[in-house]
């Protein structure tokens, strides 16, 4: 069958693996969005800009403090999370009572401001960030050459997604969080500080974006536009997965990465729109998304 359309199976495996790698970024970003949407009911349009911020923090650390990739992997999400907490505490918090569009517009504006600032100071051609020494080079898998770093991205992304899913679905803290989204007043009456929990959730969600930014830095050049290029696709991923469904966001992230990978072989020109075509189909057939429930 493969020969019929002129693609040898080996090339296909290679493309599937590449799709999985891109899917890792989609999954990490859509996970953060789903956590924030699920817990705060806020559509966080600043997610792409915070992903970009994560990559830039990594670059700053290397450039000005001489701290390499491993430091960045820890410090950058913390820094981005802290920025997120400040945003939530000082601004976003005031919008919960209003229509959701306010949250969307606020975060959208925030994204434009952040991007504008970085564009002004750093231009758009981007800064280069080298691959950590441990992951330099790669290995030949027979059907493709796999750079070690890309392998690491897949492993780390799966680990982080699984851990987050476990924390929210299976732990006591997670159960508080889920309860607080259903009925914040009731949970508060049990002596749990819901506002703090919400703040920390937002901080955690955007820290995931920061982490994805650090992971992306050695692959793509660190540039102010990197977030806005990605965020639209990631939103489509969240819609397909089902709004607020953590499992759905992660699974559809990987799945769409794979599908996009295949499109790049069979019909490269359509690679940018395939995700949106799928979004339309999914919304027609299952308006709540693949894993979402009507609310």
């Amino acid at each position, binding site marked *: 069958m493969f020969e019929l359309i002129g693609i040898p199976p080996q*090339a296909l495996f290679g493309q599937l693996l590449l799709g999985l790698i891109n899917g890792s970024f989609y999954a990490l970003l859509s996970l953060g969005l789903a956590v924030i949407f699920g817990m705060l009911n806020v559509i966080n349009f600043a997610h792409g800009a915070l992903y970009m911020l994560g990559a830039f923090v990594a670059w700053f650390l290397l450039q000005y403090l001489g701290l390499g990739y491993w430091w960045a992997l820890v410090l950058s999400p913390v820094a981005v999370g802290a920025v997120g907490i400040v945003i939530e505490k000082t601004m976003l918090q005031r919008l919960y009572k209003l229509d959701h*569009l306010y949250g969307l517009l606020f975060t959208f504006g925030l994204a434009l401001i952040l991007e504008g600032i970085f564009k002004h100071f750093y231009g758009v051609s981007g800064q280069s960030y080298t691959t950590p020494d441990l992951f330099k080079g790669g290995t030949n898998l027979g059907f493709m050459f796999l*750079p070690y770093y890309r392998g690491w991205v897949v492993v780390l992304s799966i680990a982080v997604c699984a851990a987050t899913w476990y924390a929210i679905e299976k732990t006591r803290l997670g159960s508080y969080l889920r309860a607080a989204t259903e009925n914040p007043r009731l949970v508060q009456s049990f002596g749990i500080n819901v506002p703090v929990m919400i703040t920390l959730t937002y901080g955690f969600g955007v820290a995931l974006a920061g982490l994805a930014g650090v992971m992306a830095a050695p692959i793509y050049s660190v540039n102010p*536009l990197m977030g*806005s290029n990605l965020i639209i696709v990631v939103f489509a991923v969240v819609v397909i997965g089902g709004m607020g469904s953590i499992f759905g966001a992660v699974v559809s992230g990987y799945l769409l990465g794979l599908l996009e990978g295949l499109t*790049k072989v069979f019909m490269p020109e359509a*690679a*940018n729109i395939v995700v949106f075509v799928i979004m339309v189909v999914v919304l027609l057939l299952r308006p709540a998304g693949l894993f979402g429930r009507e609310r």
Partner: protein
Amino acid sequence: MFKKALLAGVAASALITGTAMAEGLSGDKVVVGVLTDLSGVYADIAGKGSIAAAEMAVADYGGTVLGKPIEILSADHQNKPDIASTIAREWIDAQGADVIVDLVTSSVGLAVQGIGGEKGVVTINSGAATVRLTQKECTATGFHWIYDTYSLAHVTSPAVIAEGGDSWYIITADYAFGHSLEADAASVIAEKGATLVGTVRHPFPSADLSSYLLQAQASGAKVIGFANAGQDTINSVKQASEFGIVAGGQKLVALLAFLSDIHSIGLELGQGLNVTTGFYWNMDDETRAFAERFNEKVGRMPTMVQASVYSSTLHYLKAVEAAGTDDGATVAAKMKEMPVKDAVVHDGTIAANGRMIHDMYLMEVKKPEESTGEWDVYKLVRTVPGAEAFQDPKESGCALVE
């Protein structure tokens, strides 16, 4: 409700807009419009630097022409032909623009040149690369300045083929510019007896090009050519190195790379790349002096597009002075009569189809140890005379050529 809001967001994000910064002036003056990309992928190639270059040209000319003041308008076309067309019409109809320069992005360049032709306003493309501008779609008032896809292909490809690169795979950006460059490269490849093993077209812009690179790697071609630009080229070269393509013995050729791209790729990954350019700052005292002044103003060395905006604006002003009018058709005819001579282009002529013909340079990206500074990235391989680098106007198919 939530879904509706989220979908609204998806739609809104497609409308991410930059700020148009058109200044509203018209009247008894020469109005130069710099229509460029101020917020997108080509903002470092052209962008603010192009506006600065036009300002330098106006200042160097003395700020007035025929005793009238010279005004500069600028706006962000966001690489979208529809937005660019709206701005161009606005400028011409309401603000009295006499010339529109820069026009980075080929689809934009073609659209605005068409409008200029229809309205008798001079358009000078510096940023757009497609050779179609001076072929069938040429206009009496349309000019194409520092480079085009034809010259890129006809300077770089023969040199690579002569060194034994006789089988090619081309990775192309899927829009007017990429198609044009791919077609020109393919014709050189065929002409020189090399084979084109395959091509793949990727959406513009694409952050991840690994999939296309892998297809190119699997093709077994000796040379992988990138018919893309800006961020796409940067990512192509970076990711090619990541996937061991260079280490595997395939040669990379960036059919179009600007100084800012090489600066961003870095010499470590970029070394050995062949690049064709119409301007490089470190050629002689004149280019160095110009580039230093530009660097003081902008904080970066000029790309060939920015240098070209300077040269073309200056030439336009000289022609207005010589023609004694700012009537588009008259000035355009005068521009074609006069030789192009300034700090950027030392010895250029303009053909009837609007093509400015001058020497092109085949460069090689230096090794890190050969470089003496941040912007010291190229060594000259060969100076290619204009007649060899650019398409013979007689073969262009432009109706203006006898």
